[in-house]
């Protein structure tokens, strides 16, 4: 190991890492925005609504991201009429192509993850919301999505880490993110160990931070559950001990 080389190339790798972070963050954000409505459609009991979404997630989850990336980057330019539209100014930029491919791919996985969360929302919660006269949009916003998101969070955290790693594919269409920068430096110096392992360590550090952040978020969102878990085996979601004391006259007296 040539440590001078490692120190020498570190600034360039770190600036590449910044682009990796930006690409991954924007793709995850766009993916989530696309996945939110799609996951609701996908959970719909109407086949008219859920089937097109299923087709979308099936195709994007069933083919390699690299193929999707190349289709958008190389394939889009081949269609004559696209070249004449303003969309071409976007589609000829590798950066935008990567962002589009990553977002669509990420959205497909996120849709299925969120759907899993939505399906796991206890039916009683939804019934209670209906009994209170909540409209579909209100109970989706206040009841279904918050619970679904909490339940889906561990799987979603995995997906974010996968997206972070998948952003390395951008290097195949000339984007100089972390992997792209590393490949360029290796081509110049032919010291694959020093450079690639340095890049790997940067990826490891980023994943570590992301995993920790999600673990914290998970704990925060489950905060209201921890307190009641001691109430042996009763449904933790519905069981807030203070509420029970207030509503049950006998218990309330004993508490005083």
């Amino acid at each position, binding site marked *: 190991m040539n440590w001078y080389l490692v120190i020498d190339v570190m600034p360039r790798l770190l600036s590449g890492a910044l682009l990796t972070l930006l690409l991954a963050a924007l793709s995850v954000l766009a993916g989530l925005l696309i996945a939110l409505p799609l996951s609701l459609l996908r959970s719909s009991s109407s086949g008219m609504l859920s089937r097109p979404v299923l087709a979308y997630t*099936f*195709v994007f*989850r*069933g*083919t*390699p*991201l*690299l*193929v*999707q990336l*190349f*289709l958008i980057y*190389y*394939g889009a330019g*081949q*269609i004559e009429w696209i070249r004449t539209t303003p969309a071409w100014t976007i589609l000829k930029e590798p950066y935008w192509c990567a962002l589009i491919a990553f977002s669509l791919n990420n959205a497909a996985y996120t849709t299925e993850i969120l759907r899993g969360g939505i399906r796991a929302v206890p039916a009683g919660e939804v019934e209670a919301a209906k009994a209170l006269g909540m409209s579909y949009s209100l109970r989706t916003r206040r009841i279904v999505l918050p619970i679904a998101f909490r339940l889906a969070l561990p799987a979603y955290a995995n997906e974010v*880490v996968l997206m972070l*790693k*998948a*952003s*390395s*594919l951008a*290097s*195949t269409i000339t984007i100089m993110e972390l*992997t792209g920068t*590393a*490949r360029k430096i*290796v081509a110049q110096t*032919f*010291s*694959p*160990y020093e450079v*690639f*392992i340095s*890049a*790997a360590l940067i*990826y*490891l550090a980023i*994943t*570590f931070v992301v995993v920790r952040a999600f673990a914290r978020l998970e704990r925060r969102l489950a905060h209201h559950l921890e307190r009641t878990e001691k109430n042996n085996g009763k449904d933790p979601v519905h069981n807030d001990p203070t509420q029970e004391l207030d509503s049950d006259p006998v218990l309330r007296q004993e508490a005083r």
Partner: protein
Amino acid sequence: MTLLQGFGDQIVAGAITTLQVALTSLVLGIAVGLGGALAKVSGIGALRWLADSYTTIVRGIPELLIILILYFGGTVALTALLGRYVEVDAFAAGVFALTIVFGAYATEVFRAAFLAVPRSQIEAAHALALSKALTFRLVILPQMWRYALPGLGNLWLTLLKDTALISVVGLEDLMRKASVAAGATHDPLTFYLTAAALYLTFTSVSLAGLALLEQRAGRGVRISE
């Protein structure tokens, strides 16, 4: 064969290579995963630490970077070792890289499956005076299989798609053949769509196969509800 502007044969050959890489990595990766899982549940501190480091490091690094490290790193190592320029075979480097990746994730799947086998089963095996090796082979492994199958199925689908990454270091797989044909004919749309359709076929067939396997693995289980 004039199918696909004369590139039909090439695409088929690439698809076969893709399947070969995936299946070889699957078999080797399952072996690595079983070994890793045993190390994690072994109770031997050093082994557990080793397995923990392995899974943490590999799962935190992009697959593409692992392939690049093994391919270019392997070339440098072999060249230094043999004193002349040697290029690593892309197939070997690719299988090695994918085995390492699959093995890391499979370790976690097998570990979870191992822990899901009821303790009483192992105690019963002890009561029957089965040796440790026999207990593992006859009692634990068949039951682990059922718990591990859904997780392994997902990993297989990921593996199948990850083979496309090896095209970056020049393996003549489906993806690479599609790229070459796209470059030669200036018709990327046709060839990448063909590749996508073939990958989709592989994953669809896999999904159907996995459903059958899961049904078979669960045949001895009473269904409650």
